[in-house]
């Protein structure tokens, strides 16, 4: 199992992500954004969190034109599995690989704290180790995490089971920290091979650090 992790100028979660996947037994490689291809043996491509290009213009807007992104699109079109975490989610929406967009949080504050999430759909490789309705405790850390999609787009998401996770309270009831449409925290594409979420499962790998619920999420990718 080989996990390739992308690194843009301003990415800052690549080593946490590497540590998390190594702890689960995967081989990892960090690839600089100037690369024009990704390693051929890649089983999972992760666009890690951070502040690519300082979030200038819009979060993820400039990263989408980095040389490596052409290879990412090709990889995804050929069915390769792609996971975008936080800034990675923003990059994937900007690149058109995931529907919707991430806006400034409604409260205008940067939010950094543990938050509970509810599993909405698990018929995908990312969340298949969890059950629908499960509540997981995963840290969030973002300024632009306010997910937006228009009404038609939202209908499509539900029709295809593309809504993965919503922000909730500990009982799974609605609790929306940032103004996201329907409290959406993570989505996937129609083909269910490109995943994006604002919360950081790679930061929830050890209970002594607050939560190990991230293991069940990232493990889903490792069965291959």
């Amino acid at each position, binding site marked *: 199992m080989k996990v390739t992790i992308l690194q843009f100028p301003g990415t800052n979660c690549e080593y946490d992500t590497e540590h998390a996947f190594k702890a689960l037994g995967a081989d990892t490689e960090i690839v600089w954004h100037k690369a024009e291809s990704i390693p051929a043996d890649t089983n999972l491509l992760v666009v890690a969190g951070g502040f690519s290009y300082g979030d200038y213009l819009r979060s993820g807007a*400039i990263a989408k034109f980095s040389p490596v992104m052409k290879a990412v699109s090709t990889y995804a079109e050929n069915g390769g599995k792609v996971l975008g975490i936080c800034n990675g989610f923003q990059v994937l929406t900007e690149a058109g690989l995931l529907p919707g967009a991430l806006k400034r949080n409604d409260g205008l504050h940067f939010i950094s704290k543990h938050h509970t999430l509810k599993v909405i759909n698990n018929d995908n490789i990312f969340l298949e180790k969890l059950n629908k309705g499960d509540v997981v405790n995963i840290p969030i850390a973002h300024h632009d995490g306010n997910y937006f999609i228009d009404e038609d787009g939202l209908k499509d998401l539900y029709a295809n089971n593309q809504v993965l996770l919503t922000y909730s309270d500990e009982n799974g009831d609605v609790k929306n920290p940032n103004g996201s449409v329907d409290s959406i925290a993570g989505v996937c594409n129609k083909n269910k091979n490109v995943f994006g979420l604002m919360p950081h499962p790679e930061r929830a790998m050890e209970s002594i650090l607050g939560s190990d619920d991230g293991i069940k999420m990232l493990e889903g990718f490792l069965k291959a």
Partner: protein
Amino acid sequence: MIKAIVNVSLKMGVLDSQGKAVHHALDSLNFSGVNDVRVGKQIILKLDTDDKSKAMSDVEKMCEDLLANTVIEDYEIELV
């Protein structure tokens, strides 16, 4: 040389939290009679051409590709 002024703002119907906060601040400063506030950004480009229609089509392409995210934003282009 043509100067292009691009104004990018959130689409109507997309909640503009910054605009709302500014509106609230104006209210608390007793500036009454403000019905709505929208906050956007302005991008000023100096273009190496004198051909207005070329400038317009170039800048439109720039907006579609990079300067605006048309999922949530509208843009207006002014050439001077």
